[in-house]
């Protein structure tokens, strides 16, 4: 996959730490997520990737640090407006109504019939086959795509997808991936959390790999040795940045180049 052109910044996480019950879930994390592309956040279970996603639309707030959306701290934005601009589709696809059309209209009740049909088509659900059905009767993959249509109904600027294919069989997962690729192709920004780094990288242009709440590698999915990065345990302050020219010298997979700020501020690196 070619290296994606640089697009405007959508989200920035600045020195974000999140602790829950004394346990550090995210540890002084810095990240930049760009508009108009798909960014995959990958990592093993418990690495903090789903928590990171929840920070983006304020289903959680960091203990310290800032989350910036289009240049503004998310805490300064109207939270309902933020959530409609950056809609999160949770890992578990849940139907909220008993009818497919009503499901699409959950957050957009004034949506015309034609728009409902168009949204169903956009997620590759043939309206003629699905309108009038109870969402609870759909397969996991179909329900996941219906949840995508429900999210698209509010015309978001960005979709935040938490493990959209983790509970699906390969064929259904491929169908969901096709929908995501198509949405990104139309210019929609997507942030995608997945434990399956290969599948995520096949959809996303950029990849961010987390280990124990810290970014251990980042860059265009085409430039990273994903399997290797995913398996590598985190080292204090060490990160592989595929965009960092130092990463291409010598140690290809794991540079010692952290973000500038971390290089200076991380107490673990201070003698």
């Amino acid at each position, binding site marked *: 996959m070619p290296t994606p052109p640089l697009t405007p910044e959508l989200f920035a996480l600045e020195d974000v730490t999140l602790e829950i019950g004394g346990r550090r879930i995210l540890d002084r994390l810095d990240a930049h997520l760009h508009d108009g592309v798909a960014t995959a956040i990958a990592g093993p279970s418990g690495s903090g990737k789903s928590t990171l996603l929840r920070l983006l*639309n*304020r*289903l*959680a*707030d960091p203990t310290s640090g800032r989350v910036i959306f289009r240049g503004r701290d998310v805490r300064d934005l109207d*939270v*309902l*407006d*933020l*959530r*409609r601009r950056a*809609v*999160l*589709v*949770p890992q*578990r696809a*849940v139907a*909220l109504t008993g009818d497919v059309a009503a499901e699409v209209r*959950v*957050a957009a009740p004034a949506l015309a019939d034609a728009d409902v049909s168009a949204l169903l088509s956009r997620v590759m659900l043939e309206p003629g086959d699905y309108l009038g059905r109870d969402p609870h009767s759909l397969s996991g993959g179909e329900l996941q795509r219906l*949840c995508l249509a*429900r*999210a698209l109904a*509010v015309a978001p600027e960005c979709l*935040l997808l938490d493990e959209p294919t983790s509970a699906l069989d390969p064929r259904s997962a491929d169908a969901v991936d096709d929908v995501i690729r198509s949405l990104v192709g139309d210019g929609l920004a997507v942030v995608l959390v997945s434990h399956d780094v290969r599948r995520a990288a096949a959809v996303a242009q950029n990849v961010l790999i987390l280990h124990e709440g810290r970014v251990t590698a980042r860059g265009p999915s085409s430039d990273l040795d994903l399997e290797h990065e995913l398996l590598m345990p985190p080292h204090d302050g060490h990160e592989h940045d595929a965009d960092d020219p130092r990463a291409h010298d010598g140690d290809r997979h794991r540079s010692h180049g952290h973000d500038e700020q971390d290089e200076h501020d991380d107490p673990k690196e201070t003698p």
Partner: protein
Amino acid sequence: MSAAVPGSLVQGATMLATSTASTTPIPSWGAVGVSLLLVLVAVAIAWRQQLGISREIVVAAARALVQLVAIGAVLAWLFAHAGIAGALAWVFAMTFVAANESRRRGRGLPHAFRSALLGIIVGTVATLGVLVVGGVISTEPQVLIPIGGMVVSGAMQASSLALTSLHRSAVENRPAVEAALSLGLPARQAFASELRTAVRTALVPTVDQTRVVGLISLPGTMTGLIIAGVDPLQAIRYQIIVMYMLLAAWAVSALVTARAAEGALFDDAQRLVPVAA
């Protein structure tokens, strides 16, 4: 002490009961002693069948005796000396006891006691208020206290059921609520179906009870009046009022408790707060 509202149903029923009470034998303490034989029957069954609850039965029967004697004495004093202020204070105190009991059902929910107390107080004040202002009941302690007790008891049950349902929703349906919040829906809208379920669940027992009243068993108020010698056709008037009163108390308390608990379930950023299972 204020007099019964002239022409009220209560006044009529009280007068009827008073006028016929002399003809209705009231059990003596000796008769109460004889009824102890019935406790022995229950104990004998438990002992014979090796149920392991003989001691519990004896303790329960003893507690009932002591509690009822105590409450009888307290009520006798209240009726004689408390006046309307004392009666209201008694009912108000009952709301705290009821809220504390209701809170147990919502354990894990934030501010469960506060939510239950608010629901029980609003349900009680609204129901008793309508009855008093409408001239349906008098403000005499011997009316306010037992009627208030019935209202508080009903409000407590409604509040408990609402909290139980909300707790279950907050734990089990968190994914659905967060899915709705993630779409930018306000907390109240995201939680609307859970709230409806809680209020509906809380109302089911009293609706069922109201539907079958008189068919399965004779309700307490009516039974008491009939035993006291009141004509059944007149006793039912009181019972009808009681049933309608309880419907309102349950509905108001369930809704207010559920709304208050819902408010405590979401933070300023419209997030469902953690709830212990």
